[in-house]
């Protein structure tokens, strides 16, 4: 079965942070938790490039492998989700993640970490779909509505794409061909490795 992927086109990302706020506002993510963020290198110099990073929903996701309580799981369509009721906030997934995706609210006693929060691909979580609880714990469940994640949908320059891996790979390939130069999509070799 086909799977979903994220793709961020480095030549198009303009560091406008639209994806970041789209995610936060749409899922009511608390301040301090960054499910998605934009990273810029060579700021203010020729060669300045930006990229929007969140959970890539890897094939063979390292976070799933290291989770000591099996709180993280992967759906058939490749979306990696965390069960916040099982997660113990140990932080191992963050250390395993090649993209720095897992986030932890410091809202427990002594400021200890609470359950992990990360990009859900706007697919909610393992509670009743569209329920108030789902919205509170995980945010929107747009996938169940047949919609793409907010970040990609609201990307100003269409740098960030989300959805069926084949389709977005196709679009990116066309762009690269038109430019006459380019490269593989950032993070894909690490996140998906041809899967």
């Amino acid at each position: 079965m086909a799977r979903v992927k994220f793709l961020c086109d480095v030549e198009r990302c303009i560091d406008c942070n639209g994806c970041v706020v789209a995610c936060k506002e749409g899922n009511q993510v608390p301040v301090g938790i960054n499910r998605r963020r934009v990273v810029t290198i060579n700021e203010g110099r020729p060669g300045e490039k930006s990229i929007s990073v969140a959970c890539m929903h890897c094939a063979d996701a390292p976070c799933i492998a290291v989770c000591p309580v099996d709180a993280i799981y992967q759906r058939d369509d490749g979306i990696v989700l965390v069960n916040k009721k099982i997660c113990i906030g140990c932080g191992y997934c963050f250390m395993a993640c090649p993209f720095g995706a897992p986030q932890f609210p410091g809202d427990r006693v002594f400021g200890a970490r609470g359950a992990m929060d990360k990009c859900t691909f706007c697919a909610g979580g393992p509670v009743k779909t569209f329920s108030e609880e789902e919205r509170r714990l995980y945010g929107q469940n747009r996938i169940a509505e047949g919609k793409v994640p907010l970040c990609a949908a609201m990307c100003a320059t269409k740098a960030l794409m989300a959805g069926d891996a084949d389709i977005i790979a196709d679009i990116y390939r066309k762009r690269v061909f038109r430019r006459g130069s380019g490269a593989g999509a950032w993070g894909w070799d690490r996140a998906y490795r041809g899967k």
Partner: protein
Amino acid sequence: MTRKKLVTTNPSTTTLSRVTLNPRVARRSFLKLSAATAALTGAAMTTRMTRKATAAENQARKEAYPGSKEVRTICTYCAVGCGIKAQVQNGVWVRQEVAQDHPVSRGGHCCKGAGAIDMVTSEKRLTSPMKKVNGRWQKISWDQALDEVTSKLLAIREKDGPDALHINGSAKVSNELAYLQRKLAAFWGTNNIDHQARI
């Protein structure tokens, strides 16, 4: 090692009805998703795919926010004029939806527009007319505020003439209100009116 875990996905959650990780639900939504994705990119197939997705969307939207309606409006930040689809349930703006078929923005937003809903939900909005009394802000009623303001303005007009008033109008209101602002100055009897286009 992850394959193994896929199978051992937490059993307690799969028993719930209508759960996202139910593979059946996931698969059904996936087909719709791929259509919506292509629409976002402005590729050649855009319009065709969008229409398909829109039909499916309308069906699904009812489920997420039952009884909600969609209002099409325009972002209030810059002059690009990005489209916004506002989802309104029982008179409350519950969600900012993506106007991916808007011909200029194609659903795109910068960080300001992506949080446009905050303009209405913000905790920092003024909630009542206020005036400053002895250096402190004091809440007053609308009637009191308007009465005091207008009588003071009329007194100034009487004493110093209409040009003793300056109006700084706005580039952030509708054409209609901007027009009324200019008209107000004309009816008041002054040309001392200007707005952000000057700076």
